[in-house]
């Protein structure tokens, strides 16, 4: 079985600050980590390989320093890593990013399952996974909390919903985005770390992937970030006390005053 895991390097969310003047993330001095949800995708990929054999290829699109994230994925047990990087990719939105990643996956060739975290902790869009499956024209199941079984060319998974979960059968190849309920990611091993240190990280750019230059980067992105702001913190609620009738009257008054 060939599993492809897509990961993103993000700023450590325990330490996010926004520059109030430019409304952009302050990245200086902020540690970069693998998107926490992607850790579950890596773990699930490695578990699938341990169960069914084959290999796990991890890919990331990002600046050259995203190589650290890929090495960490190898230290957790992934077999190969590819960094998709090119100045022309700068400014790509989720649509352009998923296009580039789908081109990279086409270049990799045969695969059975693509795993992604349900969303990235910096942008929180949850769009790149589904975008990749759309570009590749393969089925997708989002918010997967369990891979129940894989038999032949069919996977049976549990998709988490607000009330419980759906059981979905999907043909393979497919793309699954996973939630944190799916597993408990392992720590790296020393042998994994040694391997990660020596591993060759393949780099692919726009031309290697035969990208249509109209579909990548800022110009190839149909969406624009117009403004980012820090929402003002929610004010605490007010608890009204007294007899029911009184409370209702008070409430109506309060609501009127708010209008």
């Amino acid at each position, binding site marked *: 079985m060939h599993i492809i895991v897509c990961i993103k390097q993000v700023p450590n969310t325990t330490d996010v600050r926004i520059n109030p003047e430019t409304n952009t993330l302050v990245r200086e001095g902020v540690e970069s980590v693998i998107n926490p949800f992607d850790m579950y995708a890596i773990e699930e990929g490695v578990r699938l390989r341990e169960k069914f054999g084959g290999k796990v290829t991890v890919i990331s699109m990002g600046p050259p320093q995203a190589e650290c994230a890929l090495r960490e994925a190898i230290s957790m047990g992934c077999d190969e890593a590819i960094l998709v990087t090119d100045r022309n990719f700068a400014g790509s939105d989720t649509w352009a990013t998923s296009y580039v990643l789908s081109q990279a996956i086409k270049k990799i060739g045969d695969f059975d399952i693509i795993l992604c975290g349900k969303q990235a902790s910096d942008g929180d869009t949850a769009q790149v996974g589904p975008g990749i499956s759309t570009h590749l024209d393969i089925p997708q199941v989002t918010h997967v909390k369990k891979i129940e079984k894989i038999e032949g060319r069919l996977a049976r998974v549990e998709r988490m919903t607000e009330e419980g979960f759906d059981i979905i059968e999907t043909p393979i190849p497919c793309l699954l985005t996973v939630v944190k309920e799916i597993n408990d990611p*392992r*720590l*790296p*091993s*020393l*042998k994994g*770390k*040694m391997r990660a*240190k020596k591993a060759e990280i393949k780099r692919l750019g726009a031309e290697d992937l035969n990208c249509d230059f109209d579909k990548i980067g800022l110009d190839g992105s149909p969406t624009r970030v117009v403004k980012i702001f820090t929402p003002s913190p929610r004010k605490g609620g007010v608890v009204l006390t007294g007899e029911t009738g009184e409370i209702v009257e008070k409430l109506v008054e309060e609501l009127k005053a708010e209008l």
Partner: protein
Amino acid sequence: MDILLTEEQKMVRDLCRQIAREKIKPVAAEYDEKEEFPWPIVKILAESDIFGVYIEEKYGGMGGGVFEMALATEELSWGCGGIALAFAATGLGTFPIILFGNEEQKKKYLPRIAKGTIAAFCITEAEAGSDAGGTKTTAAKDGDYYILNGTKQWITNGGEAEIYTVIAMTNKNKGARGASAFIVDKDTKGIDFGKKEKKLGIRGSATREVIFTDCRIPKENLLLKEGMGFIVAMKTFDHSRPGVAAQAVGIAQRALDESVAYAHQRKQFGQLISSFQGLQFMLADMSIQVEAARAMVYRAAKMVDAGEKNIAKLSAIAKTFASDVAMKVTTDAVQVFGGYGYMKEYPVEKLMRDAKITQIYEGTNQIQRSIIAANLIKELKKK
């Protein structure tokens, strides 16, 4: 300290630090309270290849030595001095095989230990602690077998370990020269375990009697040759003492970290207690001692790995100093926390309880001082 470490050593330290912070620290108080053996942590350490750090690569290890073992022990002990013993006391049980095992014995046992099989070292008896010459356990030759009889006491990892290295007398008349060292598998008939001891500290580790009753072991399990038991034990301790010292440094470092953090949030008289010079000086002194102890441990461990012949003195100095530091610094940490420090809801009383054993086991600090003095006199005679 980074500049002193190789890439591989940094990996060992960083991974053990991560395990200590993320996996051990959150459960340490619970294991201390319940006195259970930390099998889930053992599994994590095994999967992360930590058990193999000081074992040769050809036996499935990572190829490090005493220094790597000490690095790992220090970091794990920062998380919990008791839980760390699953790893560190396995080292004590393994060194006799690393140092004196023949190829067959190494091939048979070291790969299993590198994968996370627990080991233990059995020397102490009711009447043979500091005076190892008082050993009563016997090993009588019977054809292709030795038959072991006797009771070992306070064996760390006893009952949990699969592999035991045991010191027993093959010739009672020869005193210390009549002792021999053996490897005993847990599934051998005639090996039993006493009840789990209740202890002041390191309660996340298992301490039991190991009882041999007509326990027949194949003669291939003899280490080195008959009569070499005390050499095996002494050389093993020379190699393992930097580990005990590292355990002490880890506990002391944790006490310092907890103290600084607490002092910088606790307010009295309208200000942080970290702003009081009396307390600042205490913290500074704690830090000085921890740094000095760590420097000594690193040096001793590196000398051992470099093949220095007379390591007994250095090893003993590091063990004595680091364990005395751990006792002092953890006691001061309780003082920094004041009344809260005396309460179980806060982590420092446990550190103080855990620290005490480091002054006692693998040779009391008084025995260490005797070793140091004996070496000083020996050196004088050589001059």
